[in-house]
């Protein structure tokens, strides 16, 4: 029971990441009609915003300590981040500690700009091209982005620490009355809560703002919206930038869970596409549902008992589910009629 509950929890944070990426993919596909194979790269870029911010915060100058000496008896040279020099010891230390959550702000700005440029410079010219062309050009872009990151940050994963206050583990079992064995890292809980609030934020934005209403109408029926005299293409840039931001912050916050490397975009992309297809192409709710579902399934499949029964299942469960769903429910779990049908 404890183990099952723990696996369930384990699936939530991964599921949250899948859901956030799939949400953006679906938004872009549903409104712009573009299949974006570079969406995983956006997730990865977001993760590197966190890496970057920590690097910036850590830019230091050298100071000769007045009090401490090293083992040779000479005055110790200390690395003092400029940050502490500027904001003082307390605030600077706080910022360093909280660099991952703070990187959300950097990610929003950077990803907004990246999304804007990408849509204006590239995606826009591919609205009318076949899906195969869209896949190919964004695939090429994903390779380029990944390689550039590798060039500047190296090929090895770069671990990021969560803030000290939430870096330990929570004794969830105690909290929910399941006995003391269910211990779970705080940050994963934070990530789950974060992903849920972003998802609600996006849904609320689409539901309650005029802009969101136009976008939703566009997802239903692009021609009609066009006929109403609303120039939906003008809104496309914003939609794309929004999707990029969602993917970016999802990536930035994920860094304490999975040290980012240049290849993580590709790994997540393949899985997120499977998520989108399972959820139903063009269905936002489906993307979220399938994201969590697959995250949890994957986590259960990696349990030792399951592994013993069906070796290797954790590696392929997601794809297996995709195959079964695609063959039995051609539109995915919550897919709408008429979207991408044969």
């Amino acid at each position, binding site marked *: 029971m404890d183990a099952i509950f723990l696996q369930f929890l384990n699936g939530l944070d991964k599921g949250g990441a899948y859901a956030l990426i799939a949400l953006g993919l679906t938004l872009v596909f549903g409104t712009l009609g573009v*299949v974006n194979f570079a969406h995983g790269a956006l997730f990865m870029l977001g993760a590197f915003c966190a890496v970057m911010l920590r690097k910036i915060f850590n830019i230091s100058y050298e100071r000769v300590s007045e009090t401490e000496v090293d083992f040779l008896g000479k005055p110790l040279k200390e690395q003092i981040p400029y940050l502490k020099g500027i904001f003082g010891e307390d605030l600077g230390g706080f910022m360093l500690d909280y660099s991952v959550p703070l990187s959300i702000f950097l990610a929003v700005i950077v990803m907004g700009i990246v999304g804007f440029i990408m849509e204006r410079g*590239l995606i826009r*010219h591919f609205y009318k*091209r076949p*899906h*195969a*062309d869209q*896949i*190919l*050009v964004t*695939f*090429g*872009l*994903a*390779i*380029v982005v*990944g*390689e*550039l990151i*590798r*060039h500047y940050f190296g090929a090895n994963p770069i671990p990021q620490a969560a803030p000290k206050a939430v870096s330990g583990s929570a004794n969830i079992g105690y909290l929910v009355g399941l006995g003391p064995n269910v211990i779970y890292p705080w940050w994963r809980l934070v990530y789950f809560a974060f992903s849920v609030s972003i998802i609600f934020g996006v849904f609320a934005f689409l539901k309650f703002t005029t802009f969101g209403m136009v976008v939703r109408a566009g997802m239903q029926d692009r021609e009609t919206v066009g006929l109403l005299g609303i120039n939906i293409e003008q809104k496309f840039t914003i939609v794309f930038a929004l999707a990029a931001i969602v993917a970016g912050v999802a990536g930035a916050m994920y860094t304490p869970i999975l040290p980012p490397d240049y290849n993580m975009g*590709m790994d997540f992309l*393949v899985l997120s*596409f*499977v998520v989108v*297809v399972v959820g139903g*192409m063009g269905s936002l709710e489906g993307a979220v549902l399938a994201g969590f579902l697959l995250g949890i399934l994957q986590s259960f499949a990696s349990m030792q008992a399951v592994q013993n029964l069906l*070796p*290797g299942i954790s*590696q*392929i469960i997601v*794809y*297996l589910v*995709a*195959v079964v769903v*695609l*063959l039995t429910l*051609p539109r995915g779990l919550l897919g709408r009629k008429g979207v*991408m049908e*044969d």
Partner: protein
Amino acid sequence: MDRKTNLKDWTLFLGFAAVVLCLPIILDPIGANYPDLLQKIAIFGIFAIGFNILFGLTGYLSFGHAAFIGVGSYMSLWSFKLLTMNVLPAIAFSVILAGMFAYLIGFVSLRRSGIYFSILTLAFAQMSYSLAYSVLTPITNGETGLQTRAIRTDPATSLLDGDIRIIDQALGIQEASVPTTHFFGMAMSGYTGFYFCAVLLIICFFIAQRLTNSNFGMMLKAIKSNQNRLNYTGIHTRPYLIAAFVISGMYAGLAGSLMAVTDPIAGAERMQWTASGEVVLMTILGGVGTLVGPVLGAGIIKYAEQKVSSWNEGILDSFFSFLPEGLQHFMSGLGALFVGEGWHTTLGLLFMIIVIFLPGGIMEGIRRIAAVFARKSKSNNTSAAAPQPAE
């Protein structure tokens, strides 16, 4: 009309065969005349031709063809380990097994079309890749990769570490320490290896050409053009699609087998989806749906890969040495992004440029240039009569 088409086909085929056989001479001036690269060009040419039968003719974009490469490679190695170092059985088994594998995957994936098909094939390929690293390690030898070994002396030795080669042993063939692959005594390394691959490439080209020009090929093109209409014309498209998928899978299996033939080791990284992406790039770079294009694309990519990834900043520095020093360092720093380790950046950029500016690939570019010249010579003839429009 038919006689003229026939003549054109034969000219193309003979021209292709001649170029392939003379490749060592043709590529010599650009420093590409070494067997390893030549073999790769021929092998990936076969892969791309086969891929084009599916993607170029039917328009179904598979992102999982690398799986068949893997199947072909592993099967060949097992043939080397268990039966004989002669490549003939290895190739035959690989092609057959890849075909069967393709039938299974195609049977399921072809229930859907468009992007769903792409995702399904991708899912299957990723599954194969993951399984090759996990459950199937007794067959694939996991990350180490599968290799040929000396004949085992102790039956307790795992087959992964000691071979048995039943046929060779029965024939009483003496083995030196490391056995090499051969085709009835002809070693499969160096130039003989290349010519072996080249002959197969030419045969594959011939078959692809026949297929493309046959009624069957016309049906495949009709599927790409308007599959819906084809249904109302009385054609059940599914068997055609499965046939195309299996054929292209067999081509990939052959390519995978030849990789093992020329270098008897097989690893799962050949099945990664980036490998599937590479063959897509070769095909579109050369020209989707054309016969020669995919081979051309394969040649260019493999050549560029060898060259560009062997360059480094030093070479760039000397290349830009005519520039003032500051600019020189800037340029070579910029260029470093694209060479050596950064070769994939170049690849990705190439991918984008081709899709954006030349969706028809190099063959389309050649056609356009030819058209411009044809128009020019025509307008030269008529310019005396017709006044040129003002600019």
